[in-house]
């Protein structure tokens, strides 16, 4: 006889697999992603992997697929999400014949899986909040948001959520050759326009176009204050996340700062969209 808690865990696990698939399938089917893992330097892979666990931990705290019980419970959620992401990646890439256990060296297998596991595990840990029902605590947070409740902790939570959204969308496109090509085609003027557009989209998505989950601008605060405290830092985070992704995927190696800045602003646009969308969704 399965008790309720065990049943909830297995349902959560199934949702996690669904989330992993939903978030990582596009990247699993991106050819560049198959070669980045095995060819990355240990420093780049190490940086990516060491960044993954704090993110999973933070996300598990926000929306774990089992009710976390303190720090230990949150850590378990984060590791379960990583395991689900790893196994889902292994399963799908094996079915697509990208991975071949019989012929590929272990280092290559681990390289390919490790890089793909990052978005898959993020998807797994987000599964509960996006694919499952809301919990009482979610409702409480929503109520607080509706009341305009805002603390410094909430502020940093928002920044964290924006970083996750930026990372997720940037991760989707950063490995593609098109990113580099677009940056090469653009002039610096285009770069400035892309930055302005990114800021407008970020601000518009969250405060102006009346999406579900949109944050109201408190009456006591000017639009400029909100722009400076949320949109600008959010965009700065999107740019930093973009730069980190470009570096991790080897796109900045032996490349002049001019081109790196341009590529960062190009990737900054999808990252900004990801950051602002995450604020609406999470």
């Amino acid at each position, binding site marked *: 006889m399965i008790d309720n808690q065990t049943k909830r865990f297995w349902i959560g696990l199934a949702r996690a697999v669904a989330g992993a698939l939903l978030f990582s399938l596009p990247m699993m089917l991106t050819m560049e992603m198959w070669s980045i893992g095995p060819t990355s330097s240990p420093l780049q892979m190490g940086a990516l992997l060491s960044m993954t666990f704090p993110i999973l931990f933070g996300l598990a705290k926000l929306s774990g697929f089992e009710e976390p019980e303190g720090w230990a419970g949150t850590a378990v959620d984060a590791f379960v999400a990583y395991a689900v992401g790893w196994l889902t990646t292994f399963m799908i890439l094996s079915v697509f014949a990208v991975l071949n256990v019989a012929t590929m060296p272990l280092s290559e297998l681990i390289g390919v899986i490790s890089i793909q596991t990052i978005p898959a595990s993020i998807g797994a840990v987000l599964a509960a909040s996006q694919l499952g029902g809301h919990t009482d605590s979610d409702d409480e947070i929503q109520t607080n948001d509706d*009341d*305009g*409740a*805002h*603390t*410094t902790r909430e*502020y*940093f939570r928002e*920044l964290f959520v924006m970083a996750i959204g930026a990372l997720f969308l940037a991760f989707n496109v950063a490995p593609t*050759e098109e990113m*580099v*090509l677009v940056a*090469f*085609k653009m*002039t*610096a*003027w285009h*770069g*400035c326009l892309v*930055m302005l557009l990114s*800021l407008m989209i970020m601000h518009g998505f969250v405060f102006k176009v009346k999406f579900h989950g949109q944050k109201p601008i*408190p009456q*006591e*605060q*000017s639009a400029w*204050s909100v722009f*400076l*405290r949320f949109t*600008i*830092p*959010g*965009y*700065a*985070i999107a*740019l*930093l996340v973009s730069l980190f992704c470009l570096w991790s995927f080897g796109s900045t190696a*032996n*490349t*002049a700062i*001019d*081109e790196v*800045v*341009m590529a*960062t*602003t190009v990737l900054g646009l999808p990252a900004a969209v990801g950051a602002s969308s995450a604020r609406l969704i999470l």
Partner: protein
Amino acid sequence: MKNGNQSAATIPLAECIVAGVGLLLVLATFGYLGQRAMREQSPPSFVARTEKIIALGDQFVAKVVVQNIGGTPVADLRVIADFGEDEPPKEVVIDYLPSRSDRRVGFVLKRMPSEPEPTFQFVSYTEP
């Protein structure tokens, strides 16, 4: 502190610091791109040099650094290296070479080249 009562004067210091750092970063990026937009873009220009030659089984590999010292990125740059009479000319195509950046390529050779520094020809490229 509740948002509803929050005025500009009561915005937490941490938020002000984060907003300030973010603003600096965004303005710096704008500034950098702006000054680059004002600069005239010089055409692409290439140089290459042999970094080292290493043994690879019974062959050798000449590791060469190809640089674009101009201000315009190029794609599909074809480079031909002539290592002397003992070796037929070798060719490599570099997918993308951004401005003021370099890429490392390798030429596989049958024997140690007679010429210490090969002659490089930059045959063609496309604009990305």
